[in-house]
Every structure is written in structure tokens, then in C-alpha cells.
């Protein structure tokens, strides 16, 4: 999240080489874990790749998960640009799903073309509202946003359990889940491709994916090509300078967090409108936390976020296949890898910087000679 301090390697190396080195380190340690379990890491890699990309259905699932991670990854990235750490993506996504479900339960009879935009508004409003309170408390009352968003995750979870068990539960059902509110929802990609005459295996991968890509472009435009994005980044890098320049810190923090919350809220579009068509307990399934890893891997840039999201989507889908193929490996191995990626790409972001720099100096002898002459 922080820019490199005093770097003497080219920018592209910082943006591309370091994350790849970090990723390799994370994978090597994951390989050690596999060795400890007594399996062959190379075989595991083979099954993971095959399970994620080996057949059409697998690709569908990979991109279905990737859609979730694009939304939550963008949410975390957005906040990073303002130097805010939004750990609350999980709660915002959960409450965003509530927004979708309330719209769905009320207006489920409307045709999809009307219903889906309404659901998008519901998701954005509820997600943003859940992020607004921590943002307001940070901006106005100085309470640490990390702690408040953590607390809000737990509060969201309690609220949703209460609502699902007592209010939204399908009458007569034993499971804490709402009734199915829309039969169609967001069309799956295999259907959409079918309209174009292309055959593709059925999977939950749906057109929310396109909206996720649109969100990437919108975030890119907002962050680097609008005055609000500029204000936000200024507040992030130097709040004092921002206030001298007449930029309101309060406003930037609140707007950024609301956008961040809305992006997280869109997770429900993919999971609820695109797949389940009903509100389930824990449908956000930890995807909000994966967003942190995705944002760190992707260096908070939409392109990086997309690539990292596909990587994690592949890990999730490949991990599921893996637990079928090798029963001694549970799919939680993916969570281990995720944790390691956050450690190496996040907390130890610059650990390998001296080594990478040394390699670059070695590759470009003239520059190092010039530096020595100084």
C-alpha cells in the first residue's frame, strides 16, 4: 500500500517483479505445507491448474469466484488509495446482500431488466451505508477505522443471523434462508453465449462478471482521472498538504469509504442474483477478507486486482477439485495459501527489495559504475 521508499530500480520492476517474487515465496512455503502433509507439491500444482482451467465448467467456476474477488478487491483498493484500511468488506458485502434481498423480496415479480438495476442500487446503498458509519466515526470522531470495521463485521453477522432466523426466513422452512425471490436473476454466461450461438458448459459464472469489469474501469477513471480521485489520493499521501490545498479530509474519507462499501456490496449480485436467488446465512463466505489479499497482490490497481482475482478464483476452484482428487488435502489449503500471500505480498512487501535491486544493478553494470564514481 505504501510506495517504495528510495528505490533505485525501474518502476515497472517494482510493480511487476516484486509482486511476482513475493508470490513465488508464498507458493514455495505453501509447497512446504503440502510436503508436511506428505503429498507431492508438483502433483498438487498440476491438479490445481487442471481443476481451475482444465475444462469449461472449471473455467466457469474460476471466473465465478473471480467475480467475487474483483468486487471485494476493488473495495479494499479504493480505501487504500485514501490510506484507509477497510477490513469491513465482509460485513459490507453481507449487508449489501441484505439490500439485494429486500429489493428481490419486494419486487421479485418485475422483469429482470427492471429488477436487476434495482438490486444493484439496493446492494450499493446498503453496502455504502454499512461503510458510512465507520467512515463518519473516523473522519469526525477520530476512531480507528480498522477497529470499527472489524467490529462492524461482527455486528453485521449478528444482525443477519437475527434477520434470517426471525424475520426473513421462508415460512415453514427449517433452514435460516429466505424464499427464492427471482427465478431468473442475472443470466449465467453459458446462457448468454447460447444467445450468440456459442456452446459453453453450464456453471454459476454469470453476467455480474461484466459488471465487475465495468467497475474496474470506473474505479480506474475515478481514482486517476477525476478531481475527487485526486483529492482522495492527496488526502491519502499527505493530509496536511491536502488541507492546505483546501481539500476536505472528512469529505474524502466518507466518499471513499462509501464507494468502497458499495463495491463490496456488489458481491451479492454475483452470489445472490447470479446464483442462489435467495438470501443465505454466511453467503459472503470470507470473500471480503480475500479482497485484502487481492488488493495487496494487485497493488491496488484495477488491472492488478483483476489478475489477482483470477488467481484467487483459480485457487478456490482448483482447491475444490484438489480435495476431490486427494482426500487428505482439504480445501482449506487455499486459505493457507491466501494467508501466505498476504504475509509475503503485504506485510513483507519489501523484504526482497534489496535482492531484486542487487540483481538489477548486476544486470545494468554501467549505472552501478556511475553510482560508484559519485
Amino acid at each position, binding site marked *: 500500500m505504501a510506495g517504495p521508499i528510495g528505490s533505485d530500480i525501474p518502476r515497472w520492476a517494482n510493480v511487476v517483479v516484486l509482486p511476482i517474487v513475493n508470490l513465488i515465496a508464498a507458493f514455495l512455503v505453501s509447497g512446504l505445507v503440502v510436503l508436511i502433509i506428505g503429498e507431492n507439491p508438483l502433483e498438487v500444482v498440476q491438479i490445481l491448474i487442471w481443476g481451475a482451467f482444465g475444462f469449461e465448467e472449471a473455467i466457469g467456476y474460476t471466473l465465478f469466484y473471480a467475480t467475487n474477488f474483483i468486487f471485494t478487491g476493488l473495495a479494499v483498493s479504493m480505501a487504500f488509495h485514501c490510506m484507509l484500511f477497510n477490513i469491513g468488506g465482509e460485513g459490507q458485502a453481507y449487508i449489501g446482500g441484505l439490500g439485494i434481498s429486500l429489493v428481490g423480496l419486494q419486487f421479485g415479480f418485475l422483469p429482470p431488466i427492471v429488477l436487476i438495476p434495482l438490486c444493484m442500487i439496493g446492494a450499493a446503498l446498503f453496502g455504502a451505508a454499512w461503510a458510512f458509519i465507520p467512515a463518519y466515526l473516523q473522519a469526525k470522531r477520530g476512531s480507528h477505522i480498522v477497529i470499527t470495521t472489524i467490529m462492524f463485521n461482527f455486528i453485521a453477522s449478528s444482525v443477519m443471523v437475527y434477520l434470517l432466523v426471525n424475520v426473513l426466513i421462508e415460512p415453514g422452512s427449517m433452514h435460516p434462508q429466505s424464499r427464492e425471490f427471482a427465478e431468473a436473476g442475472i443470466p449465467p454466461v453459458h446462457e448468454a453465449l447460447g444467445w450468440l450461438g456459442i456452446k459453453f458448459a453450464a456453471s454459476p459464472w454469470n453476467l455480474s462478471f461484466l459488471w465487475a469489469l465495468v467497475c474496474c474501469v470506473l474505479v480506474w477513471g475515478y481514482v486517476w482521472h477525476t478531481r475527487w480521485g485526486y483529492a482522495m489520493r492527496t488526502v491519502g499521501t499527505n493530509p496536511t498538504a491536502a488541507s492546505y490545498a483546501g481539500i476536505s479530509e472528512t469529505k474524502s474519507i466518507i466518499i471513499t469509504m462509501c464507494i468502497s462499501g458499495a463495491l463490496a456490496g456488489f458481491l451479492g449480485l454475483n452470489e445472490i442474483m447470479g446464483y442462489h436467488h435467495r438470501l443465505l446465512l454466511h453467503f459472503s463466505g470470507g470473500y471480503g477478507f480475500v479482497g485484502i489479499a487481492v488488493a495487496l497482490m494487485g497493488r491496488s490497481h484495477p488491472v492488478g486486482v483483476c489478475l489477482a482475482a483470477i488467481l484467487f478464483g483459480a485457487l478456490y476452484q482448483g482447491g475444490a477439485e484438489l480435495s476431490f482428487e486427494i482426500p487428505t488435502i482439504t480445501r482449506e489449503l487455499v486459505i493457507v495459501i491466501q494467508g501466505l500471500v498476504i504475509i509475503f505480498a503485504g506485510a513483507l512487501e519489501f*523484504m526482497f527489495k534489496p535482492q531484486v535491486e542487487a540483481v538489477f544493478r548486476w544486470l545494468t553494470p554501467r549505472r552501478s559504475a556511475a553510482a560508484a564514481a559519485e
Partner: protein
Amino acid sequence: MEDFTLFVLVLDATMRVSTPLILAALAGLVSERSGVIDIGLEGKMLGAAFAAASVAALTGSAWIALCAGIGVSVLLALIHGFACITHAGNHIVSGMAINIFVSGLTIVLGAKWFSQGGSTPQLPHEGRFMPLEWPGAEAVADVPVLGQLYSELLSGHNLIVYAAFLAVPFIYWMLFKTRFGLRLRAVGENPQAVDTAGISVFFLRYRAVIICGILCGIAGTYLSTAMGASFVRDMTAGKGYIALAAMIFGKWKPVPTMLACLLFGFLEAVAIRVQGVELPIFGNIPVQFIEALPYVLTVVLLAGFIGKAIPPKADGVPYIKEH
């Protein structure tokens, strides 16, 4: 009399539920007082709980289990220290990573070693910390009020419960009455000054992080070998975060932190009791409401509506030595 017995039972449960919170909150307190934010309390406890239960299942000894729990927790604390102190990494990212890493690893290893979907087998009595009966507890149990308090509330807990409550004055003494404590607090407020005085900021912070690991290790061991009789996947269930909240609620001071833990523990004990019960004034309180109360209270406190919670000045700021 009925009501009083019920009340004592709730307080008794409060003590048991608060124990891991107190240990973990003190752990966080020592770490943050030295300037290292630790949201990885949850992960360290979970790792310790798993290590302790696994070792207890293999060796059948509660004490070896405790050593294993502490060992794993300290190792995780050192990873956190390596990232935050040595490499000036982001404290929150590192803590978060440790939580996620451990939640996955305990299940992966547990499923492989014990083939019970991530749980460990039930532990035998020798492998656990069993309740200790105080002398005469049986005899005075029928004496109203005082006898009940003695036999139910004070007696009949396991060793770790008493250790947790003793840890509070000990940590207080360490932080506020020793030279080490003074330096530790100074390094959390103004590391430059400590460095100028010729004392190593890194070494002090590493020691704080190790103490944090030890306390979390005891807390985790308590969960799987004293309060429970085996490790269950994700058994910390947010306790690390509640402890973090309690530490903030206690404004980074040992005794108020303990009181906050007792308050949150009491809420949890009450939540179990009032499930589905009609109360005289409040009616039927949804259990989720009581569960969420610690978090809501912490948010309200942080917002400055109940006093002001001010963290140590250099909390979460990596120290980079100038050359």
C-alpha cells in the same frame, strides 16, 4: 434464594468465559504498549489451541500441551515481529495474514493427522487442566451466600483461570513498576527518545511481542484443554477480536482491561442463559443482540461517547532507524 443461586452460576460461567479474554487482552496490551498493533490475537490463540490439543492427544500430558501451545503462539508472534519490527511492514496486514493463515493451517493439518474433519480426538483427563477443588468447598456448599460464593465461584476452576486473574497484577507490576516496563511503555510512545538513550527499540519490541505470544499461547491452550476437551475448527470464534475490543475498552490499562473482559464475559454468560427466556422488564431479548453488544459498546467508546480511548502514540508506526 433461587435467584441468587442462578446469579452465582452466571458469575461462575463469567469467570470461565472471561479467562481467555483476559489473557489475550493482556497479550494485546503488552504488544500495543510497545508500539506493535496486534490484531493477530485470534490466530495465535487458535494456533495454540490446536497445538495444545494435538500434543495432549499424543502425549496425554496437559503440561507438555501447554508448552506446545505457548511454543506455537510465540513462533507466530515472532513472525509478526519479523514483519512489523524488522521489515517495517504494516502491522494490520501482518496480523490479518496470521489469522487467515492459522485458520486454514489448523484445519489442513488437523484433517490429515486425526481424520476428523479438522477436530482432534476427545482428550483424556490427564491431558487436560481439570477443576481444582478448594479445601472445604464441599463442606460449606450448603451455607447460604458465603458458602455458595466460596464453593461455586472461587473453588472448582482449573489452574489457568486462577493464573489469568493473577496475570493482571503481574502485568501491571511489570509495566508500571519495573525498569523494563518503563522502557517498554516509552518505546510505544516515543521510540526515538528510547533509541537516543542507547536502548535498542527492536529488542524491546521483540520482547514485548514474545510476552504477547506467551499469554496468547496460554489462552489458546485453555480453550482446547481446559474449557473444552478437544480442538474444534475455528474454536476461537472471534474471541481474539473481543479481547482486542476489551483492551481498547480498558484504555490500554491492565485492571480496566480485566474489568472489560469480565463485562464481555458476563454478557456471553448471560446470552447463553437468556436464550428463549422471557425476562421481566426486557421481554425476550434476541441472543444475537447480546452477542453483538461488546462490539457495539466498543464502537461507541471509540467514537468518544464514553470517555476517550487514546492508544499509545507510536502504536502501529514502524521504527526505522536513521543512519
